[in-house]
C-alpha cells in the first residue's frame, strides 16, 4: 500500500513537472521530457504491480521464465491502442515544437493535452459512480497495458538486492509478484470483456488510477 501510494505520488509529481516544463522559457526540452516520461512509466508500472500485490497477498506462484505467448499479441494490441488513443485525442498544439509532445506519449501513454479535455474530465471523473460508462474502455486498456507493462518490466528489471533506493520493499514485491501478473488468469482470452472478474486489476473502484490517467491525458 505504501509502495502504491508512493508510486501514485511520483506519477502526480511527474505530470505536474511535465506541465510545468512547458511554461519554462526556452520551451519544452526534449531530454527533460524524456526523463520525466521514463519516471512516469516506472511509477505506473510500480503502481500497477503494487496493486496486484495488494490484491493477492501471500499467495506463492511459480516463476514463469518463458515468455507468455499471449503477451506478444497483447503488446501489439497495447501499442495499437496507444496509437489509437493518440490519434483520437491529439490536437495540434500551436504553442509547441511538433515533435516534443509526441516523445512523451509512448513511454507512459500520458501526453500533455489541451486544456479543453480537462474540462470534460472534471465533469465525469469526480462523480463517484458517474464514470461507469467510461470505465469499460479504461479497463480493457488497463488490462492490456498491464500485461504489456509486466512483460516489459520483467525483461528490464532485476529486483535490487540492497535496501538502498527509493523503494526498499520494491525488491521483495516484484520478486514475489512478477509471475503472479502473468499467471493471474490463464483461462481468460486476450480481449476479455470488461466485466471479467477473474483479473484482479480490472477493478471498477479504481477511480484514482482513472483520475490519474485522465489527469495526465488532460495535460
Amino acid at each position, binding site marked *: 500500500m505504501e509502495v502504491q501510494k508512493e508510486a501514485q505520488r511520483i506519477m502526480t509529481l511527474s505530470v505536474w513537472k511535465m506541465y510545468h516544463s512547458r511554461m519554462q522559457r526556452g520551451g519544452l*526540452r526534449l531530454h527533460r521530457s*524524456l526523463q520525466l516520461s521514463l*519516471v512516469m512509466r516506472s511509477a505506473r508500472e510500480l503502481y500497477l504491480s503494487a496493486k496486484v500485490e495488494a490484491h493477492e497477498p501471500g499467495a506463492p506462484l511459480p516463476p514463469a521464465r518463458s515468455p507468455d505467448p499471449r503477451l506478444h499479441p497483447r503488446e501489439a494490441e497495447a501499442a495499437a491502442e496507444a496509437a489509437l488513443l493518440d490519434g483520437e485525442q491529439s490536437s495540434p498544439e500551436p504553442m509547441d515544437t511538433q515533435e516534443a509532445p509526441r516523445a512523451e506519449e509512448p513511454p507512459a501513454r500520458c501526453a500533455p493535452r489541451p486544456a479543453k479535455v480537462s474540462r470534460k474530465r472534471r465533469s465525469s471523473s469526480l462523480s463517484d459512480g458517474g464514470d461507469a460508462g467510461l470505465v469499460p474502455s479504461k479497463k480493457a486498456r488497463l488490462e492490456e497495458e498491464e500485461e504489456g507493462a509486466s512483460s516489459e518490466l520483467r525483461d528490464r528489471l532485476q529486483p535490487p538486492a540492497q535496501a538502498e533506493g527509493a523503494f526498499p520493499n520494491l525488491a521483495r514485491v516484484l520478486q514475489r509478484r512478477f509471475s503472479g501478473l502473468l499467471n493471474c488468469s490463464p483461462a481468460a482470452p486476450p480481449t476479455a470483456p470488461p466485466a471479467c472478474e477473474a483479473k484482479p486489476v480490472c477493478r471498477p473502484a479504481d477511480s484514482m488510477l482513472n483520475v490519474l490517467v485522465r489527469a495526465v491525458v488532460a495535460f
Partner: protein
Amino acid sequence: MNCPDESTYGNKADIISTVEFNHTGELLATGDKGGRVVIFQREQESKNQVHRRGEYNVYSTFQSHEPEFDYLKSLEIEEKINKIRWLPQQNAAYFLLSTNDKTVKLWKVSERDKRPEGYNLKDEEGRLRDPATITTLRVPVLRPMDLMVEATPRRVFANAHTYHINSISVNSDYETYMSADDLRINLWNFEITNQSFNIVDIKPANMEELTEVITAAEFHPHHCNTFVYSSSKGTIRLCDMRASALCDRHTKFFEEPEDPSNRSFFSEIISSISDVKFSHSGRYIMTRDYLTVKVWDLNMENRPMETYQVHDYLRSKLCSLYENDCIFDKFECVWNGSDSVIMTGSYNNFFRMFDRNTKRDVTLEASRENSKPRAILKPRKVCVGGKRRKDEISVDSLDFSKKILHTAWHPSENIIAVAATNNLYIFQDKVN
C-alpha cells in the same frame, strides 16, 4: 531538501553557465544566463611583485546573445550561454565560439591601443572643419591611447538546430567545428554560415519511438576525423567521419553493463551522461553521470577503466532529488593538463578532485568565508551516517541550491576556475 528560490542569490541573469580557459591559459571566459560573456586575462608576472602570481582581471565584457522569439513556434529562445569554446590563437586577436540554445556565434576579441590623431579635414572632436579654414596639409599619426578591448561578432551560425544545442567543439584542423543538439550533430566550416553538414541524426522516423537523446559531443584533440558523443542512456559512441558522410553508425560503442545491485527506480535517469571530455593525450575519455565520473580507455568498450564516486551518499536520496529537480542537474568534468587529475562539482558548493595515479581524492568548498586571498582551502568531508565528527557536514545539511556545475582547469598549470552560481572562484597552487 528544498531548493530556495534562486532570486535570493542575486540576479538570476548573473548565474554563470559556462567557464573555459583558452589554449594558453592566458584568458578565461565565462558565459552567463543573461547572455553575457566576461573574459579575464592573467596579469603578466613581474619580477618586482613575486607574490602576485599572475592574477586574473576582467579583460572584456560583451553581450553575446539576446533573447529571441521564434514566431513560428511561439517559443522564446533563451539567451543563456550554454558553451564557450576558444579557437587557437593565430594572430594578435582572440577568437571564441559562444552558443545559446539555437545559435552559435564567432566572436573576435581584439585590442586597440593606438588612435589616429591629427586629421586634415576634422577637428579634435571629430567634427568636419570648414574647408575655408584649412590652409595646411596634415597627415594623421597614430598615438597611444588607453587600451581598449573590443569584441565583434564575426560570424553567426543560425537556423541549423531544431532542438536545443548542448555542445560545441572545435576541430583540430581549426577550420571546422561541430554543434550538437538533442538529436543531431552538425559540422560547420568557420567561413560558411549559411550551410552546415549533418553528421549525426538519431531522430527516429516515429518520435514515439524515441528512447535516447544526445547529451554531449567532442572532437578528438588530434585526429580531426574522430569525435565522440554521449547519450541519455549512459552510452558513448565514437565516430569516424571518413567512414561515411552520415555517422549514424558508430566505430566504437562504450557502455558499461548495469550493476543489478544498484538498480533503483531512478536508475535510468541518473545514468544519463551530462558531459564527455577527451583527455589531452587523446587516449581516454571521461564521462560524468549524476553520481559518478568514469574514465574510459578508447581501446576498451565494454567497461570503463576507472570509476570515481562523486557523491554516492545521494543514492538513497534520489526521490527527494527528483522532487526538487536536482536529479536533472548536468555536472561537467575536466582534466588537468597532464591528465593525472580529474575534477568535477557537487552540491553545497563542493567540488571534488581525483588523482588517478595515487587514487586519492579531495573535497573542497568554494565559498566566500573560506576564500580569503592566499588562504589555503581546507578539505571537506560529508558524514554519511553515524556519528558526525567536528567539521563534517551531514548529508541532510547540504545546500542543494548551491551547486557547482561548471569548472575549468588551466591547460598547463595548477590553476582552476570554479563557478558557484553567480560567483567565479579562481584557485591556484600554493606558492612556496
